[in-house]
């Protein structure tokens, strides 16, 4: 079984994202649970539909929870999502059609989908990108609805180890992509990215380590 799905349809993207659907739902539940006392019932659900970014929503929520101003909450959330800027530039050459269409398709960028849609030659498949995001955004929003409406009779989803699914999922995709490539630059870039992320994680604001580590991709300028 290949971990990086080679298909090019919406359905291929959904199938590739299937392993993270349940944990994304669970994460949505915990977001809804934590957000309700701070934001009420409607706002967390609207936020999940409009932004579908767990990391940014949690970051903004923790600022609001501590009594922080809207500007600080927005700053924390956007800092988290800055990592999608380099991904947006990487994806752009693979999008076809009018500016509106390419702009719309770029909105499907989220971590897992970006990786699912990436091919070893540097190209991206737009339809699996959109399919993978549709599945995750639905699971995320459904989880948020359950969390905000059902708070009180749900336990902590972390006890089922669902939060450990994300690193396991990303590690699977990483190893699969390295097994496909086998070029020295890829290994150097990965080692450098690990070093950058590990050195920034302890003190940098969330989101920054992931953005900064993408600088390691510049290793591609070397001849392999």
């Amino acid at each position, binding site marked *: 079984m290949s971990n990086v799905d080679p298909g090019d349809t919406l359905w291929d993207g959904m199938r590739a994202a299937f392993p993270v659907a349940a944990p994304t739902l669970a994460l949505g539940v915990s977001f809804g649970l934590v957000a309700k006392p701070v934001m009420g019932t409607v706002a967390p659900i609207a936020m999940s539909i409009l932004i579908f970014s767990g990391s940014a929503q949690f970051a903004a929520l923790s600022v609001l929870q501590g009594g922080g101003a809207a500007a600080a*909450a927005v700053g924390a959330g956007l800092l988290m999502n800055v990592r999608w800027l380099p991904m947006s530039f990487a994806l752009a050459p693979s999008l076809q059609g009018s*500016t509106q269409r390419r702009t719309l398709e770029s909105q499907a960028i989220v971590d897992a989908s970006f990786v699912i849609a990436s091919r070893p030659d540097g190209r991206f498949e737009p339809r699996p990108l959109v399919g993978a995001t549709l599945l995750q955004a639905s699971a995320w929003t459904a989880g948020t609805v359950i969390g905000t409406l059902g708070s009180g009779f749900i336990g902590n989803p972390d*006890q089922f180890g669902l*939060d450990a699914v994300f690193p396991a999922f990303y590690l699977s995709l990483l190893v699969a992509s390295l097994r496909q490539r086998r070029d020295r630059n890829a290994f150097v870039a990965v080692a450098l990215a690990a070093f950058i992320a590990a050195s920034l994680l302890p003190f940098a604001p969330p989101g920054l380590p992931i953005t900064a580590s993408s600088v390691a991709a510049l290793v*591609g300028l070397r001849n392999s």
Partner: protein
Amino acid sequence: MTAVWITIAALFVGTIALKATGPIALRRRHPPRRAVAVIALVAPTVLTSLVLYQTLSAHPTGVTMDARIVGLVVAALAIAARAPMIVVILLAALATAAVRALA
């Protein structure tokens, strides 16, 4: 409550802008070969930091060592044994849940 809706509106617009910058800035130009070589490495570098971030991150910032590390080690062993992804993920979740139940 106003702060909540301002936050949602600004994050909504800001996130759209971040994702759309690439396609709008590059238009339909084809990137040179060296740029493609760099682009091809963005996904592995992002994956690498995501593995670290998802395993070690504490809320709201900083790092913490908890049961997720055990889950990641179990996942790595399963991947090395060429287990299918769904098995890798289930084993990681089970190992993490087991450590939490025992703690």
